[in-house]
């Protein structure tokens, strides 16, 4: 059993089922990111693990101990909130020490731990200040420090960076990653709806949708082999292109959309192999090449440029392929403009094919 195990967790708010029979096992020292759209139950799950919500059914284990009925303070967890939630009338030092005082830790031990946390988070000069006198980034550091001093095995982060501006977010993201590497054997569960945060921080990502986990895997698998259409569409920005068509099985499996045929000879079908029928073909914009590079790809086609969105480093091009929208990236220096006809190419082996009915990956 891992550091945190959630077994058949159900949680209802009155009539509303927010978490439905959820199972999750997190290894010791792992960095797990819960990713999902707003309202899918990420915070609720985190609050259940923390013991801040009474669950309807199921069990929660932390470090092999059944903590289902334990108080938050007895679960060996530290939590960092989106709104920082610092105690406004206490100094930074008071904020850090509050939990330890409640636990009746001896004074010199408190001082030692506060000093250590302050050093790790670079907040020593701020110890005597009140939260109102801190910037957003500093506040969030203090909030992390408050979890740090408690010497816990499991850290829970609920969108800790989403109140910060982009630059600060990138800085603190690296700092959290560094912190995780520094604290060996510390498990972190991190809620976000920022994909970049999820991809960069996570050992594994759990994609959630309406109270259930859709896929739990490492970032590369989530990105390259999404288990269903929802996950494929959720991960990646700009998002994946979907093309509707038919799967036909001749000598080789072939995806057919209108007149176009794309051979799926090298595509790795999952489970019990290809079945003919209606499917959705997904290809990521960054896997589509143009012109010279396109001619090296197994599949090519010509498309008309409809809209371009220059983003500096690269340009996002919107076009149309067999009636479906097709987006792809080109180098920012590459000259394209509206109305151009360009040759695109991609490798169907890198695509994802989903059953049109069940939306599951084939």
């Amino acid at each position, binding site marked *: 059993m891992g550091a945190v195990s959630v077994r058949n967790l159900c949680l209802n708010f009155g009539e509303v089922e927010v978490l439905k029979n959820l199972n999750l096992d997190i290894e010791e020292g792992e960095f797990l990111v819960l990713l999902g759209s707003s309202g899918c139950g990420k915070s609720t799950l985190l609050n259940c693990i923390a013991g801040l919500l009474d669950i309807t059914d199921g069990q929660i284990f932390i470090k092999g101990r059944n903590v289902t009925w334990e108080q938050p303070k007895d679960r060996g967890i530290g939590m960092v909130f989106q*709104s920082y939630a610092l105690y406004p009338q206490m100094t930074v030092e008071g904020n850090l020490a509050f939990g330890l005082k409640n636990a009746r830790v001896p004074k010199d031990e408190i001082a030692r731990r506060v000093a250590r946390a302050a050093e790790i988070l670079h907040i020593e000069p701020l110890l005597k200040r009140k939260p109102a006198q801190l910037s957003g980034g500093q506040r969030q550091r203090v909030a992390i420090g408050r979890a740090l001093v408690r010497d816990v095995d499991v850290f829970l982060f609920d969108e800790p960076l989403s109140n910060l501006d982009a630059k600060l977010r990138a800085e603190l993201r690296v700092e959290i990653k560094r912190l995780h590497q520094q604290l060996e054997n510390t498990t972190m569960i991190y809620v976000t709806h920022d994909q970049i945060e999820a991809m960069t921080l996570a050992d594994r990502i759990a994609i959630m949708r309406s109270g259930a986990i859709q896929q739990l895997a490492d970032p590369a698998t989530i990105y390259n082999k999404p288990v269903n259409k929802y996950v494929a569409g959720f991960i990646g920005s700009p998002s994946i292109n979907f093309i509707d068509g038919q799967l036909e099985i001749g000598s080789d499996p072939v995806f057919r959309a209108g007149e176009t045929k794309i051979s799926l000879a090298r595509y790795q079908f999952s489970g019990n192999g290809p079945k003919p029928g209606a499917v959705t073909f997904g290809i990521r914009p960054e896997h589509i090449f143009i012109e010279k590079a396109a001619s090296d790809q197994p599949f090519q086609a010509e498309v008309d440029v409809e809209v371009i969105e220059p983003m500096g480093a690269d*340009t996002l091009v919107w076009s149309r392929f067999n009636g479906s929208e097709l987006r792809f990236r080109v180098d920012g220096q*590459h000259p394209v403009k509206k109305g151009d006809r360009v040759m695109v190419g991609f490798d169907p082996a890198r695509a994802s094919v989903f059953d049109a009915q069940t939306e599951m990956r084939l």
Partner: protein
Amino acid sequence: MASTAIDYAGAPAEPLPQELAGPRGARPRRLLSRRNIFLYGTLTVVAIYYLLPLYVMVVTSLKGMPEIRVGNIFAPPLEITFEPWVKAWSSACTGLNCDGLSRGFWNSVRITVPSVILSIAIASINGYALANWRFKGANTFFTILIVGAFIPYQVMLYPIVIILREMGIYGTLTGLVLVHTVFGMPILTLLFRNYFASVPEELFKAARVDGAGFWGIYFKIMLPMSLPIFVVAIILQVTGIWNDFLFGVVYTKPDVYPMTVQLNNIVNATQGVKEYNVNMAATIITGLVPLIVYFASGKLFVRGIAAGAVKG
């Protein structure tokens, strides 16, 4: 990319001509504009309307009886005397006793202080429990409490007399303190509940993770950040209880009458001459406590009323 780039740096703009005709800078304000005259005129009239009675009271209380009999109530005193004030405080007759308002003052203090402390302590804990610890039946409890706030006092006057009698505290200060505490409960609980509900929930969760319990969170987190609302509650209760007449007259006996009841007895005394100066002085003395409370805490009062979100 096509030549879509725009040169934002651009060439330096042409210098503007040094002085252009027409308005510049802050708009001029005329002191005696029509708007100002109207505004300050209205304010002055309203202020006089409210201050005139107070003025009459103060000057009358400083006059001797012969001067009052002359009849000009607006005239300032020719000969200032503090005799009426002394008399009102220490020797005016209030029904049975003739030791002035001093007895009533101390009675009122002994009623107000415990009632205020008790009612605020209980109501703030009520409000905290209702807002932050959503226990089973919390909503029902809250509804009952609010309904209680709308039941007219008159309905409850006599039943409470019986309850107090059965408890053996009818006619005592303890009984009156209890009544004030109970009657303050609905509105104060509502006040505190709404204030605590505006405290971000995550703050409360953080404190729970940090191992603080029901009382720990109340005393160490909620109390220190709720000073403004406590000031509001204190003002409401001090003025309300100090000014109370009805409960005082119904639930106490002459020995322990609060100041307001004694004031009434002085002013409405039927025998002897009406001593207007003493009456005025007695009235001012009685009103002094709420007045001081307002002046001392006006700023905090406004802040507490306006307090919504708490910055963390």
